[in-house]
């Protein structure tokens, strides 16, 4: 059960848990899935600031998309 791969996997899982807590504490609104995507993107060298602006923009666009679908006029 305690193979190195597993140990690593568990450690990573713990890291992600910690990260999720931080994210919650900071009220970033990221859930586990988006957090894991973000971590992988960061690992691939994406600029965190750029990423954050993309995420914000995506949130905003998706919100307005939904709002327009619902027929309400929201910026």
């Amino acid at each position, binding site marked *: 059960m305690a193979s190195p791969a597993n140990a690593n996997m568990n450690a990573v899982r*713990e890291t992600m848990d910690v990260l999720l807590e931080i994210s919650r504490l900071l*009220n970033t609104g990221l859930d586990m899935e988006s957090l894991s995507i973000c971590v992988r*993107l960061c690992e691939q060298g994406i600029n965190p600031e750029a990423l954050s602006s993309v995420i914000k923009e995506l949130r905003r666009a998706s919100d307005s998309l939904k709002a327009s679908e619902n027929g309400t006029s929201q910026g």
Partner: protein
Amino acid sequence: MAHWSRFEKELELETRRLISHYTSIQDEEDQNFQMALKFAWSNFKFHHFLDANRHNVQRSINGIHEKLMVHSDLSKAESWLRLTEEFLSSPLPNTEGTKTEVHYSVLALLLHLSDSPSNTNYCERPRLKETEKEDTFDWAKYLMEGEDIDTGPFPDTPEWSEDESEEEDSQQPLSREDSGIQVDRTPQEDHEQNDKTVQVTWTGCFQDSYLHLHSNLYNVWDQHLYNTGPLYLPEEKSFVTETQVIRETLWLFSGVKKLFIFQHNDGKVTVRNDVVVTHLTNNCLHSVLEHIAAYGQAVTRLQKFIDEVTGHSAEPCPPGLNSSSSSSSKKSSDPPFRTYQAFVWALYKYFTSFKEELNTIEKDIIAKDETVTLSSVLERLSPHLAQITMLHRVFCTGVADVPPGTPNVLRASHLLNTLYKAIIEYDSVGEASEQSVALLFSLWVETVRPYLEIVDEWIVHGHLFDPAKEFIIQRNKDVPVNHRDFWYATYTLYSVSETVESEERLSDAASGSSGGEQASSSRQHTMVSFLKPVLKQIIMAGKSMQLLKNLDCKETEQPDDAERKSLYTLFLESVQTRLRHGEDSPTNTVTEQQATKKSLIKMQSIVARHLELDDIHDPLHNFISLLYLEQNDFHEKFSGSNVILDRSSESVTCQTFELTLRSCLYPHIERRYIECCGNLMRTLKKDYRLLGYLQAMRNYFLLEAGDTMYDFYTAIFDKVLEKESWQQLAFLNVQLQEAVGQRHPEDSSRLSIFLETIDPARKKQPVNNLDGLTLSYKVPWPVDIVISSECQKIYNQVFLLLLQIKWAKYSLDTLRFSDLTVAAKRQEGGQSEESTAKEPINQQIHRMFLLRVKLMHFVNSLHNYIMTRILHSTGLEFQHQVQEAKDLDQLIKIHYRYLSTIHDRCLLREKVSFVKEAIMKVLNLVLIFSDRWQAGFGAWKIESIDKMESDFKNCHMFLVTILNKAVCRGSFPHLESLALSLMAGFEQC
């Protein structure tokens, strides 16, 4: 280059994920998606941001900490610092080492995304909780808990609200805060709804990990899923123990609705998705639970039906069961539908035993003397579960599938038929389904009870009491008992065609007399099949009894009601004795005698128990009380009598179910039928002089009272002879009264004669003069069922024929030879010369004499044939049959047959009308002949004698040929005598 492209691909993949995650657009070809992708891609590639700086990040972390401290959010500040530290020193999925640039860039990302990090008040509580939760994970505590599990007793013993008080003693207090067990948060709304209300104490606790030292298959499997799937995200689960699952299962089966694992929506039972036990994988547990839920649903459905019928449902308008809801909702106004009630009563008894079994299991669990596992419980319940499946199937086809608005009679007969068919179906399987047959049989025996009681009441008291209109025979309200049509039109037999299931109203089929039998054989009735063989007897007995009741007969041997056993009791007793001596009957000497014997004895115990139940009350009282039971009483009766039926031990083969019925039920009905009908026949014959009236009909219509009728018809004939008008009603009636009053004064008031105006075109022949003369005999009420007006019509036809023959005979008989001879002598003296040219007068007269004798021979043969060969001998046969007749219907049939026989043999049938015409011609000839004879010699010419002779010869020959042919064929043996005598007359010509 290759590396670059792969890197790019991965990057693009992640970007796509990110976009689809946020925009929730699944279609990657979507225009919006492509736009978002382009936007993200260009931002990632062509941005003007600086790389993440670890100093800046660290400064921000410290800043936030400071800010939290300033806000005196100490615990959070501490968590923040510790969490970030922990994160920085933890490994990342694809990055070597700790505190790398990646770590900082991730933190930087979070910081950028953080929404007002300073405004800690805003979402302080959730964060606090989350962090605390993370912090308090405690191995020591977990290990202690492991110890607790072994030592601690049941933490989750719920409270049983009512009749489970004995469990209260064994209930043990909560010994710990079981992880996964919390105080029930769902409100207990409907305590009064169920018999048992349990408090489910393990609802709604979700814990990310519940670990057990040994039983950890779930965790191992979960771990495996973690390892194999990098994106596996743990779902929130609520952990329960197997004991909890078992107890919920037991409760589900005992009809509890508010459960945690099993959820009821709209009559369906579903399994909660997030329930797990530690030692089973999710899928495994669910497949078992789904199985249980299916049974639970069947139980709930049946339970609901029971509630509805007993009027105990808490829901005002139960969904799903529309068919029976109508019966329950209208209960206050409608009379109770007893067949359903009886069925429910039987179901209820079954469920009582089933719940007892559940209770024993639950007690075993509480006692903890042995290990109880879910599979062992299911194993133990499996015979019950099979039975429940069967019951549910029967219920579905027999009750639930019936469309709403169906009349009760159809529902009742459908239910009984379904049970009956199910028994026969399972019966044919043999040993394999002993239990099922036993259960079905007991259900059937219960359900059939109202029917048998209705039948009993009807054939014993002559009163068809069926307020809910559930019996297949219904009384037609508009026909009073003392009506002539009572026997035919009083009852309606409902029957259902097998294929279309549509109702057919066979009015009059119930009468059974003429059309009933053909009707029942040609149609495939689904009317309660078990009654079919004795249906006729039941109808006969019932109608006879009702008639008898209304006849207020003098000697009625009324069975004492107190001592009399109801049909149902008799039936149960017979079943009992039959099963006791089952091995002796030839039907059971097949195979496995031992097994059958054993099982039969067991089945007998069921019946015995039914009998015990019955013995609580006098059967009749019981019956009446059942009729007037209020809904509450009904329920009290349900819950009050502590009937314990140990059904698990019942193993019955009634391989010979139909034989059982034949030997146990039918004889009682048969006996009752014979008794009733015999009684009725006796009463009719003795008190109502049925035979006397039948004799009177023959006396007057068939002229058996020869002297009386002779007086009557000779008076008419004399008038005709004297050429006076006889067609006056007053004259006819006076003649009739005089004739009858002398010898049969009792009938004189009943007899009267009528003259119908006849189409003058038909009166061309003298013989038709008598047409329109109809005799009428007033038959008093109960006898007019047998001697109906239709019968009188046939009698009248025969009467008319007889009168015509008598007339011909009379007119021939009254001719005097002297009339002719004297006239001839006178003429001889006067005109002797003239006549010498022609035939001598004497020869003419001689020819007349000869013709007269020939005609007399013919008429006398015919007269003899009809009066003796036909009417007398057929009458004797008829009298004999009447003595033998068992029931009124049979009597009516015999009478009809008698009438149609004499009608036939008097050649009145349409088919042989040519024979009758020939005879009529001869009779006509006779009348003309006698007319001329009377007129005296000289009033006719010699040619007319020739014509009369040839006419008679032709008719005579024709008749002889026809009759000879018929006799040679042998189809009409009775015609032989007529043919012979006519032939004899013919040869002498």
